[in-house]
């Protein structure tokens, strides 16, 4: 099956991240989360032909060097030996919040920015969102349920301990057995990891995991020093092989983390700066202000409402268009609220939402206000017929409520927490206009996911990080569906499973479309539009790359010019 060099290999599939709850549990609608949640996995197959395609297109807004000049530069330098300029300067990054732990098995994607300077991942993503080699130089799929990786033989951890296939296997066992691992979904169906030789190992699942190489470019793919896999506390003591080393003595826990150069790093080209400091900026204004005034060089998780301010000030934007805010209705059997068992009521809720107004208010008009699950950037999985599905129609909403016997209105309960308050309050106003009264239940940041799964709420605002239907669609529907045992969306699982093993891309696309339609038409998933995961950086910063399943750019290869 497909292999290696990510310039060729295009990840189609990806799970890495449903992060649906992760994203939902913290961060405003346009600023990403730093709270709880998990990266979910679907465990389905993907056709080989699809592997050559790219899941989404990344957006970069900034003045770029003309392509012709870049080509000229490349030509001129083609015959000269590559000279790697020495690392220089300090890269200061503003993150949404503080690091909660430096243990990759204990954190979700919101912590990626804090961990990635220290830990190498098995794979990486490039600027085009393709999976490229990291510690692994090649990967093959000997059978649908197994992945085989070949790893570098010149890597050592910060204390000099060498990295090899056995270490990778030990790490995978550690990740899969770590109690409370928020990325447990990514490891769903894990059977075993085994060493083939010093640089080769296999990972076997009981289901096909076509997205596994992409997953290995994110937090689950971070490799820990084997000397610390014995239960050592890594909370403030990260032990990796990455380009920089964490300096606890110069850091202030909960405020700023400081990293210095790893002098023995295997790929000096990644080390563009001598030092990195990452500071938590919980306030959106403070984060963009710090960038504009030159206090930091990169600001992660920039709210859409702040992007224009940054661009006007001459900052550059990198945006991965995979944020999907939506309303999820799980109580479709009416266990908590009988009204929600009526499909007409759920559709009335959908018709009550003015997506254009929502996106103007919450995303400063930068989002794609379409009604489907995938935006137009995901050309492969965007179905135009869903764009206007349940377009704002308050009269139709009232008719449906009347038909369902709720002409005099009804009351539903939704959770609200500080990080998502503006988005939820806007939805409450929209629903109120069609006679749907919403009682808000105040909860803490980070509690939304657990409370949804414990069936305390049957309807809520949520957000997913999209990558591919093979992971997304089951995760959007099935996990919540399991909590209430409704049983009405089993076909979604079947359709996705069939699509994932299909050799015909058009057939797979059609099956995914049918699964999406089921989720949307049943009023299970109500789209609020599609937004980007944004990071902004100063004009003197070069080489910023961000991928799927990440809330921060890679520090690798970044250089400060001038």
């Amino acid at each position, binding site marked *: 099956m497909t292999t290696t060099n990510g310039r060729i290999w295009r990840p189609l599939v990806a799970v890495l991240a449903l992060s649906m709850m992760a994203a939902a549990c913290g961060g405003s609608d346009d600023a990403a989360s730093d709270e709880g949640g998990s990266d979910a996995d679907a465990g389905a197959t993907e056709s080989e032909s699809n592997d050559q395609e790219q899941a989404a297109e990344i957006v970069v807004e900034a003045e770029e060097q003309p392509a012709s000049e870049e080509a000229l530069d490349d030509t001129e330098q083609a015959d000269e030996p590559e000279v790697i300029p020495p690392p220089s300067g300090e890269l200061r990054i503003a993150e949404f919040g503080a690091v909660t732990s430096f243990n990759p098995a204990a954190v979700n994607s919101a912590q990626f920015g804090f961990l990635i300077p220290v830990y190498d991942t098995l794979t990486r993503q490039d600027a085009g969102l393709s999976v490229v080699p990291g510690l692994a130089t090649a990967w093959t799929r000997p059978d649908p349920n197994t992945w085989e990786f070949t790893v570098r033989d010149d890597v050592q951890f910060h204390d000099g301990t060498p990295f090899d296939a056995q270490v990778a296997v030990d790490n995978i066992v550690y990740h899969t057995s770590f109690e409370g691992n928020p990325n447990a979904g990514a490891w769903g169906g894990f059977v075993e990891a085994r060493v083939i030789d010093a640089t080769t190992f296999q990972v076997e699942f009981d289901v096909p995991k076509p997205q596994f190489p992409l997953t290995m470019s994110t937090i689950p793919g971070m490799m820990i020093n084997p000397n610390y896999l014995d239960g050592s506390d890594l*909370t403030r003591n990260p032990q990796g092989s990455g380009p920089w080393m964490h300096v606890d003595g110069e850091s202030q826990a909960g405020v700023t983390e400081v990293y210095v150069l790893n002098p023995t790093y295997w790929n000096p080209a990644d080390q563009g700066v001598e030092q990195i400091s990452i500071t938590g900026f919980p306030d959106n204004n403070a984060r963009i202000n710090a960038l504009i*005034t030159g206090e930091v060089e990169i600001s992660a998780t920039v709210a859409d409402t702040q992007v224009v301010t940054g661009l006007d000030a001459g900052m550059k934007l990198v945006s991965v268009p995979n944020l999907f805010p939506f309303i999820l209705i799980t109580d479709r059997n009416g266990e908590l609220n009988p009204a929600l068992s009526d499909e007409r009521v759920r559709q009335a809720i959908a018709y009550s939402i003015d997506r254009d107004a929502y996106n103007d208010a919450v995303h400063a008009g930068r989002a794609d206000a379409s009604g489907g699950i995938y935006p137009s950037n995901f050309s492969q999985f965007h179905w135009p017929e869903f764009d206007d599905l349940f377009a704002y129609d308050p009269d139709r909403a009232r008719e449906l409520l009347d038909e369902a016997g709720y002409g005099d209105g009804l009351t539903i309960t939704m959770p609200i927490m500080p990080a998502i308050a503006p988005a939820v309050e806007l939805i409450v106003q929209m629903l109120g206009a069609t006679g749907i009264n919403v009682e808000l239940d105040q909860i803490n940041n980070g*509690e939304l996911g*657990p409370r949804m799964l414990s069936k305390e709420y049957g309807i809520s605002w949520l957000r997913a990080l999209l990558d591919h239907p093979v992971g997304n669609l089951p995760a959007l529907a099935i996990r919540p569906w399991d909590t209430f045992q409704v049983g009405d969306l089993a076909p979604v699982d079947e359709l996705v499973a069939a699509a994932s093993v299909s050799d015909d891309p058009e057939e797979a696309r059609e099956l995914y479309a049918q699964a999406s339609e089921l989720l949307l038409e049943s009023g299970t998933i109500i789209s609020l539009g599609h937004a980007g995961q944004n990071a902004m950086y100063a004009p003197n910063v070069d080489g910023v790359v961000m991928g799927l399943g990440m809330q921060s750019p890679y520090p690798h290869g970044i250089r400060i010019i001038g």
Partner: protein
Amino acid sequence: MLRLLVGRLTAAVPLMFAVATLVFFLAQANSSDPAGSILGLDATEDAIDAKRAELGIDQPLLSQYGDWLVDAVQGDLGTNWFTGEEITTELSDRIPVTLGLAFGGLLLAVVIGCSLGVLAALKAGRWQDRVITVIASLGIAVPSFWIALLLAYYFAIELRWLPAVWPPGGPDGIGEWVEALVLPSVALGVAASAAIARQTRSAMIGVLQRDYVRTALAKGLPVRRVVGRHAIRNAAIPVVTLIGFQVAALLGGSLFVELIFNIPGLGSYGVDAIFRGNVPALLGFVMVIAFVVVLVNIALDLSYAWLNPKVRVRG
């Protein structure tokens, strides 16, 4: 004076106990499950139970309270549920920052508030008095976080005179430390300045109408000397009382100002603790704030004694 000090310190003990008790039980009213929040979606029930046991929240409430109180009396405020750090360590890093911010705001408030108040009293009924009264009303009405946003925009983003945020990694030297606190202190001090100006004006007008002031002026003493030596001191007691209240207000206001300027102080720590339902951190934050307010009020009580000898005699 010593007896006064000892008396006030003794009275502070039951007050701190009452604050601790109230906050502890109010925090329990929050129905959240911190173990579930910390471990995430995929945690098993066993893992959540183990986490609850580790945090000690599986114990009866009174037992939790007793344990916390015993530790707190010994200076151990517990461990942060989310970072695993000692709360006393985390707070000790942040206390100087917030005290610096509050001191800056208070200094500004006292200097500007008293000056404007005295000027308004001396010009009572004239246009200067009316202008100052309007400005003071505005200062009280406009919330400090809004002033903070405006200050950051104009003086940091547009003019680039001062930093928009606390320097990442911390200030390099006292100069940068002070520079970073200027805008937040102004944002914090505006409302306090306005309140102090109004109180000073009111008290000064009352004092300036007293017989001894009229006599002093009739004897030909310069206005500056009469005001500076006699009137201000006698008008100061209600102003000092107000300053005591303002310290608590400044510490409360720091919650939002610290977020806007990304200052790693007590305020941002408290906000984070509240939003996460991080009970030990919240308790630690409240206890420190309460302790500071108690200390400030003791200092103010002592200043009454200096301002008014009758207090000293009774003390």
